[in-house]
């Protein structure tokens, strides 16, 4: 790991001021991703600005019934929060399927959104990787790509966005609030992460000097009946091969409201707009679920080792919606 300078910011204004004057600086949240990447030499900031003392640790109900989550709320606190568990159970579930208890105790909401891909070649400085070293190539395309993306990929990069939490958030129409010396911006989470295109090193629309301060969830009554289903290689402590965040509202056997997002299969937290479009107004049956899943996965491109995810994702969507229909939401 490269030697770096460390400073701790007492409040938001000093944090954003510090980053605006230190071009090679990075914010340190829980450090569970940044520090790993520094150890591997993938990230090499000159300065690390510790933001864990910032007063951004609240989970508050908003007047409209939505919820505002501070960027430094720890993942485990968010998952255990009563408001979240009752109004957005899929979010609580998604977080609890991620990483391990120890990691969740450290990880923050802001850091989780910005965690970087687990592509094996991204982590190995001996490999060709356009994301790590623009223009060097992509070893994953002809190599081990079981964990890589089938949606939203390009010939430059097929890396999966690894977050579980972000998948639930994108299903919930979350909005990210960011701050810099230039002021405050609000960015819908669906637009926050970028597709790799020819510049896979640019992962979000966040500017280098912007701090995530909060994530806001609009009120969404149908989210009370929601689930997060994560399919993976072992029972715990593994990234998703496929995950499905879904909320479903059915009246008289017809789908009147639905939210679906996918994880483990796409280069960003993937809102399944196409599946939602097919389902809205359709009879709530296995056939509709399957048609919706097929529509969503129609543009999917399988690579040498991840072709199976196309079918797996469809089955996981159908199974999750079926469970919502027959058993209701997560407890």
């Amino acid at each position, binding site marked *: 790991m490269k030697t770096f300078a460390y400073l701790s910011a007492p409040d938001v204004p000093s944090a954003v001021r510090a980053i605006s004057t230190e071009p090679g600086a990075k914010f340190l949240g829980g450090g569970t991703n940044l520090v790993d990447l520094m150890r591997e030499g993938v990230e090499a900031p000159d300065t690390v600005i510790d933001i864990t003392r910032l007063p951004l640790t609240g989970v508050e109900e908003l007047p409209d019934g939505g919820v505002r989550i501070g960027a430094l709320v720890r993942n485990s606190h968010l998952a255990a929060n009563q408001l979240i568990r009752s109004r957005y159970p899929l979010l609580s579930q998604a977080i609890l399927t991620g990483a391990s208890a120890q990691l969740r105790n450290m990880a923050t909401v802001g850091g989780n959104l910005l965690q970087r891909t687990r592509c*094996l070649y991204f982590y190995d400085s001996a490999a060709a990787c356009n994301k790590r070293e623009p223009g060097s190539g992509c070893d994953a395309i002809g190599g081990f790509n079981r964990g890589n993306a089938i949606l939203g990929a390009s010939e430059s990069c097929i890396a999966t966005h690894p977050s579980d939490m972000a998948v639930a958030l994108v299903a919930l129409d979350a909005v990210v609030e960011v701050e810099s010396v230039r002021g405050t911006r609000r960015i819908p989470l669906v637009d926050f992460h970028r597709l790799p295109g020819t510049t896979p090193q640019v992962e979000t629309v966040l500017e280098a000097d912007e701090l995530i301060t909060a994530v806001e969830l609009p009120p969404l009554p149908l989210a009370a009946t929601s689930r997060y289903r994560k399919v993976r*290689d072992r029972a715990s402590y593994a990234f998703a*091969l496929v995950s499905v965040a879904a909320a479903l509202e059915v009246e008289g056997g017809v789908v009147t409201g639905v939210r679906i997002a996918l994880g483990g299969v796409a280069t960003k937290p993937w809102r399944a707009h196409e599946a939602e479009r097919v389902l809205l107004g359709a009879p709530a049956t296995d056939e509709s679920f399957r048609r919706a899943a097929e529509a969503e996965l129609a543009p999917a491109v399988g690579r040498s080792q991840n072709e199976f995810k196309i079918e797996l994702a469809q089955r996981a969507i159908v199974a999750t919606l079926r469970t919502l229909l027959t058993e209701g939401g997560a407890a």
Partner: protein
Amino acid sequence: MTQVQNPPVTTTTTTAAGKYVGQAVDRVDGAVKTTGEARFAAEVPYANVAHAALVHSTVSRGRITAVDTTAAAAVEGVISVITHENAVRMRPPSKVSPIDIDSMASGTTVNYLNTDQVSWNGQPIAVVVAETPHAAHEAAGLVRATYEVQPSTVDFKAEAPNAEPQPSSLILPSGGSKGDAEAALAAAPVSVDLRFTTPMHHHNAIEPHATTAVWDGDRLTVHEASQSVVWVRKHLAHKFSVPAEGIRVIAPFVGGGFGGKANVWAGTILTVLAARMTGRPVRMLLTREGVYRTVGGRTPTIQRVALGARSDGHLTSLIHTSVSQLGRVGGMAEPVTSQSSHLYAADNLLLKQEIVKLDQIANTSMRAPGEAIGTYAIEVAIDELAAELGMDPIELRMVNEPETDPLHGRKFSHRMLREAYARGAERFGWANRSPEPGVTRDGRWLVGMGVATAYHPSFQLRANVTVRVSVDGGVLVRCGFQEMGMGGATAQAQIAADALGVPFESVRVEYGDTALPLAPMAGGSAQTASVATSLLAACEKLKKSMLELAKKSSESPLRGARAADLSARDGGLFHGGRGETYASILARAGIPSVDAAIGSETRLGDLVGNMRFMSKFLMDRRRWVKAACGAQFCEVRVDADTGEVRVSRWLGVFDVGTVINAKTATSQLKGGIVMGIGAALSEESLVDPRHGRVMNPSLAEYHLPVHADVPRIDVEYLDVPDPTMPLGLLGIGEVGITGVAGAIANAVHNATGKRVRDLPITLDKLL
């Protein structure tokens, strides 16, 4: 030196003869490990210790044309950057000799940093020594090498068709045949002919390899995470051309090895080199990636199992062949087909092992080398044949249970597979298994049961032991064996306490140190039996000496007693109601202690001992087939939509001879089963076929089972002594992992109707 005080006995379930042998005694090293008092190789304090880090090659084969160390050397705190350009000369590893087991010590044939040749992707090409581990690692990341790349072959599957016969040796036969198995297969009314693959695995001991090395002139002290302090000492003496007597290797606590710490690998040698060159005590704790790059793993295999049977199930033909890999720079050829020569009474047998040599690091032994993955193929094939025959798979096994060893007709020293299956089937509820696959359902889960045989050969190695009894009544057992968490010291204390008739708490065992009498490496599940043989002999010798000493005094109640009539109990020797304690014999004689030794430490004594051992070993092998066996039962659940497999129940019924300590033994067997679950469902070292680099060298991406993957495991013992082994014990370190992957694959078939013949059984193979 290890000096662990024995805690008092807490549990008292008696299983076999003896006051302590057979009891589930708490492990003697438990307290120091749970309190953190135990010091591992990277924790031994030395003032002025420097820290080392490795730089790895990024090509699989080539010549280093230049190494730029400027940036590395400029990092604050760096003491030295050692490359092949400035490293002191070391002797290349010696050739492996078929008569000297110690010649197998070296992990590879590479003379690290004394060559510009790169032989695998990840080979160490430099070592950085610095004041802090952080500086060493930062600098290591800044070393830049350029290579003249040479063509390499790294793709196991692509090279497999070019496999050559695996060399056979007396210790590790590589095959055998009886009759004409191919013709019998062709003629058989019912047959299966199947191809299996298993991937490379890594050991992933919780403690990464670590070395602390301190030179004092030509004398050297090494604290090492090792399964064989003797091998480390011998190999370092050879490499650095110094007398072995001047080297002390200490490894009282080792955080798991599983075969990965049996050989001497680059990290050890380069730490010692760095200490030699810098004149400082040097420590190197490998990163997890460093372990993957510099310590071999388990070979991948391609296996064929073909079985031919009459319609009553009687096997007419059994063929098991394997291809495994070696590095061009060495490796351990796994006896993949070994168990298949002992398991089934087939009329005709053909066993054959082949190898390909690749430009990869030398592979090495890993828990139950051969049987761990060989039992997968043979046991799935048996299950498939049973399905073809419409027979219950246990019944098919019983029909073919041999009376003598199928290949050579040798006698089994003891064999209780029938009993193991009978007990297991009853307790597990095997009768409830639906013979038709894919029909048992519990909600979203498809449920299935599977079974497979566990098998691991038993043998002994040579161990020197001394036992001392002191005037305070204390007993000291000294033997340089290894403790990696198995419970070896506890078992030997139990054995000594019974043999001498003293309280368990009064026995202290010293181990894990070359300053002690020489012991073999911890491997082959042979350590407990090997040490026990010598320990029992030493205790007999000691009792005789004590009797002689007692008889010298006219006051001794033992006067006139004959050794054969004595019983050792209550801290001394008695016959009838008369006798006295060792303490009183010593006190009267005015002697502080008496020692008894087995084995000679002189060079000549060692040679003679080795020859005697080899001839006994080979004679024994010609007479008996000895093995620990078992029946592994499991239930799995497979998600009907996604193919996720979860193991939901486990029972292993084992015949391991006498169980010395059910607590430590059960840990070993459960640990083996957990490791087998990993091999079955998730473990795979991903070696990129383009450049031979392991791409998942971390515990995040190499999927070991986590707690949630492991159900409650029940272990049962038949607990009948083997007549040919010391105290009747057969060795338990490895048998637990064998049969596990086979049982799971068979249960997955029972649940889903799908056969997976390529490990690991990941969900994509079940969609």
